[in-house]
């Protein structure tokens, strides 16, 4: 069984957010929800400035607090044998316990049905004319393993694009990154690119003190100034 992980090369990352926009596109993520996002920080004092940009997404933790907090049976948030922390939207009761437990803030809750703009008025007419369920550019691939669009009173988050991974494709953020900053693969395979990158580079994870053992790793630094 694989142990999936992602390595983000901060030096290669150009801070453009193509990953995050493409993620919405691939996963039918509504406005205001971010399966993929970023933290931007500017530090120093003029003119000695450093900019930082850290891509964020579900860390697919080895010890996922979201799973621990999930009260349903079976768990709505649960870790699979390959390390992907998956969400079962059918079982989810929208209690938001996972959202509160996640130290990374990468779980989002739908207060209302997403894609409201396409559910009424002229937007609905466009969807009806064009097809595509829910909204005109709806990606049916997402529904291969999960709800194509998550409904009101449910949470949602990154699944490492499991629907693509199980079909032999990389997660869409990896493919869409124009800077080739992201590598996805199997930590159990010592010859995999992710294993090699981690072996050859100093790396860090977000909030190691939480003891979650994230599976999203970062190497090198974003701002290249001394």
């Amino acid at each position, binding site marked *: 069984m694989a142990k999936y992980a992602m390595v983000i090369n901060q030096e*290669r990352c*150009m801070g453009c*957010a193509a990953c995050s*926009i493409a993620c*919405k596109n691939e996963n039918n993520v509504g406005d205001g929800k971010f399966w993929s996002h970023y933290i931007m920080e500017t530090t120093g004092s003029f003119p000695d400035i450093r900019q930082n940009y850290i891509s964020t997404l579900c860390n697919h933790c080895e010890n996922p607090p979201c799973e621990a907090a999930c009260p349903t049976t079976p768990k709505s948030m649960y870790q699979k044998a390959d390390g992907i922390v998956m969400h079962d939207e*059918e079982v989810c009761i929208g209690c938001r316990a996972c959202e509160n437990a996640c130290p990374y803030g990468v779980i989002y809750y739908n207060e209302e049905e997403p894609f409201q703009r396409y559910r009424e008025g002229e937007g609905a007419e466009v969807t009806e004319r064009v097809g595509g369920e829910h*909204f005109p550019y709806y990606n049916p691939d997402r529904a291969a393993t999960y709800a194509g669009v998550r409904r009101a009173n449910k949470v949602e988050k990154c699944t490492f694009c499991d629907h693509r991974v199980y079909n032999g494709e990389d997660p869409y953020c990896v493919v869409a990154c*124009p800077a080739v900053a992201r590598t996805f693969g199997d930590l159990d395979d010592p010859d995999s690119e992710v294993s090699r990158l981690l072996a050859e580079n100093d790396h860090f994870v977000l909030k190691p003190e939480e003891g979650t053992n994230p599976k999203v790793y970062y190497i090198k630094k974003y701002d290249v100034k001394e």
Partner: protein
Amino acid sequence: MKITRRNFLEGAAVLGFGAFVYDQGRRRRMETLQADEDPTRTEEIGELVSGEWRPTGCLGCTSWCAKEVYVVDGRAIKVHGHPDSKVHGSADCPRAHLAIQQVYDPDRIKQPMIRTNPNKGIDEDPMFEPISWDDAMDLFADKIMELRDNDETHKFGLFRGRYTNINGLLYGNLPKIIGSPNNISHSSICAEAEKFGPYYTQGYWNYRDYDVRNTKYMICWGVDPLNSNRQVSHYLNVFGELLENGVQIATVDPKHSSTAAKSHVWMPVKPGQDGALAVAMAHVILTEGLWSREFVGEFNDGGNHFVAGETIDEGDFNEVHTNGIIKWWNLELKDRTPEWAEEIAGVDAATIRKVATDFGNAAPEALVFMGGGSNMQIRGGYNSMAVHALNGLVGSAEHEGGTITGRSAKLGSFTDPAEFMDEIAQRNSGKQKIDQRGYKNLPALKDGKSGGGVVTNRVADAILAEDPYLPKVMIGYFCNFNYSCPEGERWNRAMEKIEFFAHCVTHYSEMSHFADLLLPSTHHMFEQMSSAAQKGNGYTHLWIGERLIDPVFDAKNPESELPWMLAEKLEEKGFSNLMDYLKTFSDPETGAEPTDGMELETNCFKILTEPIWNPVKYEETENQGTKYNSWDEFLDAGIWNSDAYEFRKLWSNMPTATGKFEFYSETLKNALQEHADKHETDIDDILATCNYDVTGERAFVPHYEEPFMLGEESAYPFTFVDAKARLAREGRSSNCSWFQDFKDVDPGDIKWGDSIKMNPEDADRLGLEDGDMVKITSPSGEATATLKTWIALRPGTVQKNFGQGHWAMGHVAAEDYEGRKARGSNNNDLLGAEYERLSGSTAFYGSFRVNIERA
């Protein structure tokens, strides 16, 4: 029972739900895999849908990337870079994705509409009502026939914003056949000053390409290639490789840009002071003996006599591929030490010296990548020359690892319209264009000619002043000058005066508000055939895309279907010249005349690209790159790539007056002299009229000019730094929710909002805090925005990105669309309508002061 968060929290039962029906892969063949360690949980893994990646391209900015679009069941779902492009490969800039939201935007114009309220004004409701395409074009043709009947066809005009390769028909030739000189492009609100320097040094009026893969040192000057200019997909892709390979990068920009974060050195030049920095670097390169012996030449005695403050005898230096190095030194550079520049430019002398020295040592594999920031300034023309001239000094112009001009695809041409221009058309199309180009105070010296280039933003003033005359019937496409030009308020008043205006665009916009006819345009990327060429990475690609989806609404291609429909109507009314002309656009394969606008569309692209896909023409035109055997084969591939660039072919073969790279520009001298002669005056007078303070011989060398600022410092204490929002798609994407959701990808900006950034020291002094609403005032207007403190900005400057401030584009872009209330504000409401007059370029940078106070 519906289990909700509330009743869960209240202690209700938490078991026994899950009976909802979801949209799990209704259309797919399913297979079941056991992928879970929990034996009780069975998961179905569906296959991915079988769509098709089909070629097209993106005109969301001047990068003009080749794309592929994923089409599933007739819907466009995703976009990525065309993997076969030698310019950028499959790399895809972030804003390309937004095109998907543009094409399916419910706020698009859905059918032709006619204005029923004859009163035009910002506060007038145009009261648009649906009209058929047939009636709309009938009305438009009536208006043109009226001009023809009254012998005032020159009062017809066409505005072009963005465009495809076939624009030569609508933009180039249609106005001529009707009888008008007035085809007005957007070019001078884009980059003309940026082209001015390369033209008046090396005879190239165009964007350059940069051989970054072979360079050792790169200076990004007034340009943010990871963000907005140019070939962003390529630079996003290649930058990591450059860093890994040890390429040294310096960025010159008043703000800490996206590229500055990826640079080893940030030189935060004071706005408008780029010229001081450039001439000081040139001074260092010469005094340190780092100029190119091969390209520039050497002293007769082989030594280095460039000593600060000392003049040199021209006869002592033997120049090779350049002209006037000693004149430049004597007239300008000898006193321009880094110490002189330090206070003026705001960059310490040691940094100037180090960057110039490292650059010179790395040369000739060293380049200055120049963008509009350093030169689209009121006095930016000479900055453009000075910055670009550094490439000449170190011999990197046209050299491996340097700045290059790129090679173009040789394309077919459309039928010459001359023989379809009747006597009225010939006479009236020779009249003065309405943008006042070539007037004494607007030389617009494109390609070395007085009035050679467009002065886009001047048209509003010209209309208001009716000088040279008041146009009556106009059409605009893929443009929104009321929003995209500084001081758009003038455009509002000007467009009120136009008797009849048709606007052919995808979205209603600020300019549409003054239209008599709204004509829905197809989206270039998906709904029409489309093609454009662009260079980058040492190659030029030319992409072509078919209609990938049915137009979502009743939209037509403005560049082909629209002229066809107009021609039909004009023919019905007794003027058949346009239709006669269009019928010459025969299919190059079958010889068949077009019989409708769709066939015209195909034929236009087929004619234009014939030297690419027809092997016989390919040989004749000496195209060099991908070879195709047929139109179908080319269309199927969707992309042509040139062979790699050939370096140094232009050395001593430059299209300048001397054939050399000119540090002393005989080419500029000739152009200025021609313009001065035309206005019966001398060059000094012309330069003074154009807001320059130079006189005499220094006018012909790159030299320092103190910035010309609009607004007194006492009343407007902050210098304003404009930049383009990363996802702006040239101001057209703010009705996409992804633009708003990711607005904060511009460092310091805020989602779904608009901020102006200020150094915290200044904010403290003014008693302002992060998040305060502030009023920004300039001599020409005011705006409001949310204040954000940002340390990556020089005290005394404020920075705001262009992209918000649409009140007319739709429900997402506007805060209150029905109430015509914009989300945020438009930078162009703060910038005065001024020009770098020698190029005709509108000034956007380094020329503006503002005041900030709590709103």
